[in-house]
């Protein structure tokens, strides 16, 4: 049995160690805990307050963004 699953984060394929991961777990996995970020999953915003509750599925498409310099 193959464990883990693949998702797409910011346009890049990412292999996750487990099939039972929340957005919160992904954020920790990516060492982004405490960073000011916003997450979109399959086109919908995932509010920060829901990171712990939203379960990732295989082939999910996530966008994780932050603020950078710009005009």
């Amino acid at each position: 049995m193959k464990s883990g699953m693949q998702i797409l984060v910011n346009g890049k394929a990412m292999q996750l160690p487990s099939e039972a991961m929340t957005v919160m777990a992904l954020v920790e996995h990516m060492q982004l805990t405490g960073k000011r970020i916003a997450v979109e999953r399959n086109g919908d915003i995932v509010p920060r307050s829901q990171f712990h509750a939203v379960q990732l599925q295989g082939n999910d498409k996530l966008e994780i963004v932050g603020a950078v310099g710009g005009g």
Partner: protein
Amino acid sequence: MSDALVIAGKSYESRLLVGTGKYKDFAETRAAIDASGTEIVTVAIRRTNIGQNANEPSLLDYLPPAEFTYLPNTAGCYSADDAIRTLRLARELLDDHRLVKLEVLGDPNTLYPNVTETIAAAKVLVKEGFEVMVYTSDDPIIARQLEEIGCVAVMPLASLIGSGMGILNPWNLQIIIESAKIPVLVDAGVGCASDAAIAMELGCAGVLMNTAIAAARDPVLMAGAMKKAVEAGRESFLAGRMAKKLYSASPSSPTTGMIG
């Protein structure tokens, strides 16, 4: 004398809005922002780098959101959908922040705005409760339509983004300013301090710029120059200029009491 810039019900002392891109480093960004006296800074929303330097400093460390009003933009978006998605993310990123800069581009070479996509995006964003400051062309009819949709400020270009070509069509800007009931800010094209002063003398409520400061030989010095130019231009506008005459038979010094 209080002469505040009011946008979406909030007052600002400074009428200069400054972008945070293209600086040498974050320290220079901060120094230029401080010298400009701005209270509103634009930021872009971009994908976080994956797996790279989780602890490297970020723009927010240098410009804490508690000290400035952030104006997240949609720079680089070429469709209404992309702009809307970007600003929904910005709203979440900045804790239900609603004041945004909408810009939808139509061409990667000129960065000219796509006004039909801009209008489509503005309609959705206003409905969703965003306070939309909208970058657009200097077309007075489009500006009026954006106001009717419910944008909180209309921001026509003076010339193309990053061009530094100055104010190419003051007549159109004047028509927009005269008919708008919301603040009109010049966004894009300002190249030097006199350009900013001219924009303010036309009656603009403010000026938004980035490259004019960031690409100056000395960005911090230019930021200070822009602060003064915007203030001088505003005061000149409020003071009301003298009438232009080809010549005048009315010298400034008395015509009586001459010697001899």
